[in-house]
């Protein structure tokens, strides 16, 4: 146990902080959230700036603590989020880095790092959510291509992505997990239709992607045919790991803002609210420590090399530490915005308030990327070793 930063880590933080201070004022205004091309342009321009300053591969090749410092500092400085680069940098990229051929890595990784290409994710289907392995999108080999037909859902940035990391069924007769294959699908291929999906927050952060006999070259397959489940798990275990670092920093910032707002509007005198905020302070501080722990346990292996597939402290299972984190975090985030509603009072009925919009989107946290029910199964079965079934 040594929570002090090394000389090198401190130097990295100072250098990064200086750079952020110099470049952030030069950024253009944030785009309208409903304007997808503008969002893509903004996000990829930022990635290009990171690239040119030598920070592009911080998620892939840096030591875990360095990544943590990067995420902490960019969030604190109010730098842009990873945004449209999310899947490329944090899902598809790491998968290709671990499972791809040298040629595939050469083809797909540099454009992600430079912000030249944007990826989206095609895993979930309308009838395959918690039970991802039951997905039915079919890919049939035809010459040098796979011909893909089906429908994907919950795809972010589909409107502006160049590539889709797609999980398809190539052997319908094999056991559920055995007949799947991972493909990189060009989003401009004929037969791909994107339909925006409106969330309860009124925005369209997700899309459905319909695939009608889309031809994907067999060379776009990463990993072996029918080995897609294992290939995908590399990505998913990553998703359940440290993807929330920036958010936890942001939540702690919001929590401080809630306290100040409550003091300003007099609700600080409500002991029930005040003590809720105090408890959330402890929760988020501990969640931050848990992230540090998980990251620190990932050891020196960089993420792009499968960092979060390193043994979790529960005993050697990839990504389970992430399940413990996500269970508590998703709940704490919802409690944070419930507390925000208490601070706002009748103002919580005003959908125009940022905290109200965030309260609405917080409702997805116990569902997306594995419902809390599924996460509890994972913790119970894979960490605690309770029997499967029922």
């Amino acid at each position, binding site marked *: 146990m040594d929570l002090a930063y090394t000389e090198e880590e401190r130097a990295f933080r100072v250098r990064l902080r200086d750079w952020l201070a110099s470049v952030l004022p030069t950024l253009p205004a944030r785009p309208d959230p409903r304007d997808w091309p503008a969002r893509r342009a903004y996000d990829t321009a930022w990635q290009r700036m990171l690239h040119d300053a030598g920070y592009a591969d911080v998620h892939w090749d840096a030591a875990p603590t360095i990544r943590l410092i990067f995420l902490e500092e960019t969030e604190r400085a109010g730098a842009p989020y990873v945004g449209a680069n999310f899947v490329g940098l944090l899902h598809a990229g790491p998968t290709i880095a671990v499972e791809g051929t040298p040629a595939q890595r050469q083809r797909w990784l540099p454009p992600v790092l430079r912000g030249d290409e944007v990826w989206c994710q095609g895993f*979930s289907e*309308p*009838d*395959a*959510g*918690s*039970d991802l392995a*039951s997905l039915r999108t079919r890919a049939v080999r035809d010459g040098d291509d796979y011909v893909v037909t089906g429908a994907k*859902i*919950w795809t972010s940035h589909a409107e502006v992505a160049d590539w889709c990391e797609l999980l398809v069924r190539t052997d319908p007769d094999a056991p559920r997990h055995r007949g799947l294959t991972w493909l990189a699908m060009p989003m401009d291929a004929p037969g791909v239709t994107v339909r925006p*999906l*409106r*969330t*309860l927050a*009124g925005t369209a952060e997700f899309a459905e992607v319909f695939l009608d006999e889309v031809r994907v070259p067999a060379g776009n397959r990463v990993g072996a045919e029918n080995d897609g489940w294992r290939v995908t798990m590399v990505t998913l275990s990553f998703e359940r790991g440290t993807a929330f670092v920036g958010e936890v920093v942001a939540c702690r910032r919001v929590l401080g803002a809630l306290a100040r707002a409550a003091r300003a509007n007099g609700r600080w005198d*409500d002991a*029930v609210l005040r003590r809720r905020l105090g408890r959330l302070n402890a929760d988020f501080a501990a969640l931050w420590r848990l992230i540090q722990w998980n990251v620190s346990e990932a050891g020196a292996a960089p993420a792009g090399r499968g960092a979060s597939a390193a043994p979790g402290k529960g005993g050697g299972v990839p990504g389970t530490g992430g399940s413990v984190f996500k269970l508590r975090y998703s709940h704490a985030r919802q409690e944070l915005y419930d507390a925000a*509603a208490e601070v706002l*009072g*009748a*103002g*919580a*009925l*005003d*959908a*125009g308030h940022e905290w*109200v919009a965030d309260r*609405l989107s917080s*409702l*997805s946290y*116990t*569902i*997306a990327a594995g*419902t*809390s*029910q599924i996460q*509890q199964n994972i913790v119970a079965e894979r960490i605690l070793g309770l029997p499967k079934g*029922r």
Partner: protein
Amino acid sequence: MHFQLTDEQRALRDGTRKLLDGRFGRDRLRAAVDEPALDRALWRELGAAGFFALRLPEEAGGVGLGLPEAVLVFEEVGRALLPGPLVACELLAGVVDGVAAGERTAGLCDGSAEAVLWEHPADCDELILVEGGGRDAAGAPGRAAGVYRSAPDRVACAPLTSVDPLTPLARVTDFPRGAPLAGPDPSRLRREAALLTAAQQVGSAVRTVETAVAHARERTQFGAPIGSFQAVKHLCAQMLVRAEIARSAVYAAAVTEGAMDVTGAKLLADEAAVRNARDCLQVHGGMGFTWEADVHLHLKRAWLRAACWGVAAEAEEALAADLLG
């Protein structure tokens, strides 16, 4: 002493459900989400069916029923998510001309609230403000408890993007008061508004249990309906418990009309509606998070109702004080 509905009460409940199913089914609900202006034709139909005149004496052209019957009707309203200044019109029938028949509409604002909110500001022909009559029994400083009327166009408002797409809201910044209205007692108006709001919450809470259960029976994952998994089963069971506890409290308060009974009933009904909507969303998974699913409409309306006519903090304090009483 008994809780069972009489045959007449049962008929009233079933009739209301049938009317609302027919005239405000899912298509109309979703149309109202896109265009929340009040459906005046439906309003007149409700008026003609005696919906607003329910508690007016028969000699005044009303139906002559009581608060328990109004609660049954409002439970159905809550199930159906029917929008409009319903509580206001129910309570102001006989006070404001034309409201009983559904020909005109009236809004009702809580003048003692921290923010004076006005539901459906574009659709109210008159606006009534209740000052005082709450626990502290006094109005805002310098104002007498009472019930005041104003023409909507004389009321100053700040606009507000309502979180509930079915209920447009404005925030009243200035309300020119005339002489207080004779007749309605502020305490009683407030109590009845709370109870009818609670009844809607119960209806919503019951509806979200049913919706969650229907989805859990239908949706298959891991080769079985998700309702066969204990995690989902137990979510649904607790939803029912919340709804039934709240319903017991609301029905009893409708009979006793006791201030503490109403306060407790509203507290439990608010909790049941909000938490059931959230659990319903959880049971629905990703689909529950979409605009197209109705779950969010229940949740948002439940939030709104919970903020009206007595919030949880006030209720808990009043109920605590009652223990020493």
